[in-house]
């Protein structure tokens, strides 16, 4: 079992966190998010991202607005809501704690 397979479930669970981080940076549309993720270990596809974004929107973490594009029909550009920003801050704190634990455990 490769490390990639071992961490499959953890990576999947972290995806929402990472999408929050990406959306926090600037207004993005789905292809932007995919491009940013594709350079990392968290590379994913539309089939996963669209349902995830719709769930996050339903939970009030992100919202979108339609913007004209130079090629083709208008696109949905996503941004964080106030609730999403709060959630991101909490998650970052929590993540800091976890990674601290991983680093320090077992060391003397």
């Amino acid at each position: 079992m490769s490390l990639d397979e071992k961490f499959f479930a953890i990576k999947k669970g972290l995806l929402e966190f990472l999408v929050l981080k990406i959306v926090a940076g600037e207004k993005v549309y789905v292809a932007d998010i995919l491009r940013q993720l594709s350079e990392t270990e968290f590379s994913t596809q539309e089939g996963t991202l669209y349902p995830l974004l719709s769930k996050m929107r339903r939970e009030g973490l992100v919202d979108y607005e339609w913007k004209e594009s130079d090629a083709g029909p208008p696109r949905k550009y996503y941004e964080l809501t106030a609730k999403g920003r709060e959630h991101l801050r909490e998650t970052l704190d929590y993540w800091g704690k976890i990674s601290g634990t991983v680093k320090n455990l077992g060391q003397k």
Partner: protein
Amino acid sequence: MNKVITINLGGTAYQLEEGGFDALRAYLDTAAARLQGNPDRDEIISDIEQAIGEKFRALLNSYKTVVTAKEVSAVLADMGPIEAEPGATAGAAATGTGTGSAAPESGATHQPGGRPKRLYRVYEGAMISGVCNGIGAYANIDPTLVRLAFVVLTIFWGAGIAVYFAMAIIVPSARSPEEKAAASGAARFTAQEFIRRARAGYYDAMKSFPDRHARREWKRRFKQEMRGWRTAFRQEASQGAASFRPHWPPPWTPGAHPGLGVALPLFSLLHGTLTIIWLCALISLLATGALFGLPLPSGIPVWVGLILLMFVFGFFAWPLKMARRAVYYHGFGGPGWTWPFIFVVDALVWLAFAAVLIWLARHYLPQAREAVHHLPAVFHEAADNVRDWWNKK
């Protein structure tokens, strides 16, 4: 040389090779099935359609106007399988068929996705009063199959007609655009809906009736034929009953025999089980052209197989049905009860038993749940098979 099919994705027309079209349809069908119960299903699907359209557009230029089957599969592979949300799957399983009913906070805002579905009669493309059309739209099944089901119901149980007319009276017809949208649960004219209508030969049928007279004449003849069938079957049924009656002990006073209470559910259970086995056989024959993986002997076309299957079922079900009729007849004081009434009660009882069995299977057998999940796709496939066969003739 390949056939090309034009589709509408997010408001733009694309031309696909036929193989690519089939792949895209299968992908969207699977996506819709996976997102069952998700209040934003329609919105996600239209997002996905638009994303696919964008990828298609990147492949085309003024000299290349058709997306090949290979390119479609490449695009679909790039999209990746649609994943149901981890949180939503549990909810979807719990609420079961209650699609769209669970969208309290999202429905309040501007969003068009979680529109509740309602059963309406749909006149567009209807044959008689739009009952079958409405059921088809509601369950996302080809209306031709619903009509076929009603005809089969009528032939074997007679109650098809009664159920049909009852529904024609009770079920409201969709008149306003909102009601029409609610009939199929579709907020927008998605590619899937477009494909469904195109496949259903909806536009062809309109072409083949150039004027109102021809259409009306055809309708009249159809109704007449149905009436003829009904009387013929009723006669047959009453003859069957007449020949059965002498073998049954003379009438008791109402509800006299203690065995009746045991016999009736037993007969109903047997009849329901038989019906389900028969339905499974029918679906497998329609969808794959083989009976549970067993191919038909060469030289026997699918439609002959279908008729044979119906006869075999009728052969086994007839005694059971007659026995149950006789139980009703005697258990409820006989002569006061006329035949049509017994038809209805009989049909309701075995339908209830069949429904309970299906529910139990769905609840306790993962395979059965899977099968129910794939049913819409199987029905589409079956409709295609029947139509191909019809066109070949």
